[in-house]
């Protein structure tokens, strides 16, 4: 499975992406987790080194090219990036921070690696990506690796407006299947209406869950919570749903 998570800031992309990565890995899948955001998030929700492993790739892997900004040096392959420069996470996950290059704060530096993993040619691996918040980067080539893009939305007017914008952008990149993951749901009345308006399938409804807030406060992965969590159960449902759909598609 190759899936990217997009949505408004604070909608819960990182928590859901990190939890999906862990659940896939626990099922025996080889998982590459990509943080394509420049702000930390995914490393915490996966539980990679206490969230500290999001420094970005070594600057010497990239070079600045006329008209292209910062790009990876030609001799560096996606496989090499994963094998040599990814961090080890729990359950055998490999974690890569693709969103930044330390020491370079120019806008060009953050678009260095977006295409790299598109060429990652190990079909047995699953890729789970956490995209930057909002609409800026989500479909500007950042999700090129993904065959599925999940729009994470809360049942709020702002989230709905963001999803509409993302949906409009997604129409320009028709290679990925798009679906909705509702998050922090307290009552499901508004959901069918929003899904109908956006004309997208609902892949999951994740309930509002105080345990998610607690895990985020403490900087821990939701899957490492000893207590059963309704949100975790719903995210597990999402994983099973997507795996079953992928099987059908084969």
């Amino acid at each position, binding site marked *: 499975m190759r899936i990217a998570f997009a949505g*408004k*800031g*604070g*909608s819960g992309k990182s928590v859901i992406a990190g939890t999906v990565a862990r659940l896939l890995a626990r099922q025996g899948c080889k998982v590459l987790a990509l943080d394509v955001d420049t*702000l930390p998030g995914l490393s915490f929700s996966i539980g990679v080194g206490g969230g500290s492993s999001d420094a970005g790739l070594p600057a010497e892997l990239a070079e600045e090219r006329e008209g292209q900004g910062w790009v990876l040096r030609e001799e560096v392959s996606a496989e090499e990036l994963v094998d040599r420069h990814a961090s080890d996470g729990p359950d055998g996950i490999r974690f890569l921070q693709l969103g930044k290059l330390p020491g370079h704060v120019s806008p060009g530096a953050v678009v260095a690696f977006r295409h790299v993993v598109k060429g990652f040619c190990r079909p047995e691996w699953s890729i789970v990506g956490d995209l930057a*918040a*909002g*609409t*800026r980067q989500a*479909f*500007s*080539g950042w999700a090129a690796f993904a065959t599925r893009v999940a729009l994470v939305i809360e049942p709020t*007017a*702002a989230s*709905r*407006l*963001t999803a*509409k*914008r993302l949906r*409009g*952008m997604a*129409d*320009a*990149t028709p290679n990925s299947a798009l679906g909705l993951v509702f998050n922090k749901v307290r009552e499901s009345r508004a959901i069918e209406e929003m899904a109908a308006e956006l004309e997208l399938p609902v892949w999951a409804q994740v309930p509002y869950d105080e345990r998610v807030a607690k895990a985020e406060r403490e900087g821990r992965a939701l899957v490492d919570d000893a207590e059963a969590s309704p949100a975790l159960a719903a995210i597990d449902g999402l994983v099973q749903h997507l795996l079953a759909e992928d099987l059908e598609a084969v």
Partner: protein
Amino acid sequence: MKLAVVGKGGVGKTTIAGVVARSFAQAGRDVVALDCDTNPNLGLALGLSPEETARLASIRESLGDGGDHAPTPAEILERFGATGPGGVRLAVVSRIDRPNPG
């Protein structure tokens, strides 16, 4: 007073900026609210409808880089802004994201 509100996604920047703007307006000040987010939702927090919020973004989007359209800040507000509840004048001044595959 010129106040900018910044922070990580989802912390509540827009909500707080909207309430602060409305509070100042209620206290009798003239208030200009600028949405600098590339995913601009400040209109909602100020009390504008989703349709009007989307319309302001699309006006900004139609301007491209904007250089030729609005030579002065006052003109941006005048021509491309909207007045919301409580008299707050809002304009979207960010670069709006457009599909840019590749």
